[in-house]
């Protein structure tokens, strides 16, 4: 597939993020649904320097509720970048050596065009009139960004969960622009169980009276409660039973005995409530609806008559696929299916299932075995690519 026919210019537009994020404007983006979006903005961050050969670019793709602040402090939460532990000077992905790029996805709410953005005509915000977007559309917008940066071929595209779906999309449709692909804890299509969990989250948002059929911004409202419930339900799926047991057990929160009521008696309840309420500070409810939907629609099998491997015929990209033993949201079987499809077309693929008790979130944690795999793959690939 060709890159999108987009005219790109740097945009000085301000989305309330000040100058902490860079932006590009893409004049027109045809979408998978048949609709198109005009004058979209992608907010992104970069760390490190692009080398003269422009061969050291690494695109990091964020997960559902992630953003472009991968290795720099988050402007709202002030927390370190979400993958700060492996990306930075002298770290596993050494920014003295690599040029790391991370963009907020199309449909997101950290500066990229999404349902909370004002329409290009300057009138209203999109709200539910925002066109349905897909993982393919998100990646097409990223291709526009990579064009803008003047990079023909990325050294690596790396991402977990929804970020891993984007990695697979890059490999399936723009493989000549990806030297190495690292899809982590992901799947080539969203499972029925995962669609079901997403639907619970969306229904929670829509059931909040403050959602106002998606027009809450006009009414100066925020569907706090619905979005928080959506986050609480989703957060459980990112963990594992042993983790919850070890972290909280049946311990009570700041009390000696149960209240015999519906207060957050248990620590686990208090923790989830906190996860929910802190999430609404940094995420837009409609954006949550659209981005979860994009994941639901992701299906690389369907695009090729049900045969996944057809996406990867004659591919030159090197792959490193990883999964985690306790991840029940994107279980190892999903990664194995990807590996089998790549094997079927004799692609260059490595695969490791990492022992971890921490569930889906494992990829964001400090797991030495995982980091060894990642670092071994990146080092060897850089050697083969000839990156000093």
């Amino acid at each position, binding site marked *: 597939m060709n890159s999108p026919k987009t005219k790109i210019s740097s945009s000085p537009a301000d989305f309330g993020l000040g100058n902490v994020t860079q932006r590009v404007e893409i004049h027109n983006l045809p979408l998978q649904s048949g609709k198109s979006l005009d004058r979209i903005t992608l907010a992104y961050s970069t760390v490190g320097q692009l080398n003269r050969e422009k061969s050291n670019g690494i695109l990091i793709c964020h997960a559902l509720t992630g953003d472009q602040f991968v290795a720099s402090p988050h402007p709202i939460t002030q927390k370190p970048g979400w993958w700060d532990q492996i990306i930075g000077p002298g770290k596993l992905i050494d920014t003295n050596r690599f040029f790391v790029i991370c963009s907020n996805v199309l449909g997101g709410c950290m500066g990229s065009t999404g349902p909370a953005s004002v329409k290009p005509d300057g009138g209203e915000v999109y709200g539910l009139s925002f066109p349905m977007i897909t993982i393919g559309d998100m990646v097409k917008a990223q291709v526009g960004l990579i064009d803008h940066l003047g990079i023909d071929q990325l050294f690596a595209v790396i991402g977990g969960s929804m970020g891993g779906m984007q990695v697979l999309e890059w490999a399936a449709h723009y493989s000549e622009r990806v030297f190495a692909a690292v899809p982590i804890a992901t799947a080539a299509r969203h499972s029925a169980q995962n669609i079901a969990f997403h639907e619970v989250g969306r229904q929670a948002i829509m059931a909040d009276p403050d959602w106002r059929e998606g027009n809450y911004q006009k009414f100066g409202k925020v569907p706090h409660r619905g979005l928080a419930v959506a986050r609480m339900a989703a957060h459980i799926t990112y963990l594992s039973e042993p983790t919850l047991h070890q972290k909280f057990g049946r311990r009570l929160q700041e009390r000696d005995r149960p209240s015999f009521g519906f207060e957050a008696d248990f620590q686990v309840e208090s923790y989830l409530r906190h996860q929910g309420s802190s999430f609404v500070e940094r995420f837009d409810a409609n954006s949550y609806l659209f981005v979860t939907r994009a994941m639901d629609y992701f299906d690389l099998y369907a695009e090729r008559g049900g045969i996944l491997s057809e996406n990867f015929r004659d591919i030159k990209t090197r792959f490193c696929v990883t999964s985690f033993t306790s991840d029940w949201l994107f279980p190892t079987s999903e990664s194995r299916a990807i*590996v089998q499809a790549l*094997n*079927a077309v004799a692609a260059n693929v*490595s695969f*490791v299932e990492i022992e971890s008790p921490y569930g889906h979130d494992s990829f964001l944690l400090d797991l030495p075995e995982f980091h*060894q795999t990642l670092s*071994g793959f990146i080092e*060897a*690939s850089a050697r083969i690519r000839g990156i000093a």
Partner: protein
Amino acid sequence: MTDLLRQDLALIADLIPPGVRLLDIGCGDGALLEYLGRHKNVDGRGIELSQKGVNACVARGLAVVQGDADRDLQSYPTHGFDVVVLSQTLQATRHPDRVVAELVRIGKVAIVSLPNFGRLSIRMQILFGGKMPRTNSLSYEWYDTPNIHLCTLADFYNLLQAQNIKVESFIPVSTAGRPGLWRQKMGLANLLADQGIFRLSRQPTGTIEV
């Protein structure tokens, strides 16, 4: 240069023509794959059970998938490789018969090395000691051995016959790790060899599945 390899791997490496596509099942830390890639321009892939082994391979720049011979061979396409190598692993599989059949399906040629449970010193240990034998190459106690399907070279040869698998060549290997001089005589090899290396093939008989 093959002295950098374990002796049995060096003998296997000698059997592999340059430039082939090769799958090494149970590839360990990737020593054979790396050697073949560097010195024989072999396009290699590996399967390895241990995460440690896979990590070592990945760090060498090799394409290796975590998996095991019993479970993960079905997904490989028929004749997807010129050569498939299974070294010192068959005796640790759950279904050696099925694994061997998969080897000659996936590879146009399969190279299998396995320890010989029929050699004289092992027979003597059972005969006179009355206990499960232990040797340098088979050093486990009976209760903690991963080698759940040990066989003699003659047993393996019979399995190949039963499965209509062609033995293209056979190298008995002495305890010193050298090719034995008894390669024409299976009975003698079965008595004296420490291990055997078989080069196997099967012409496709049925439909080819992808």
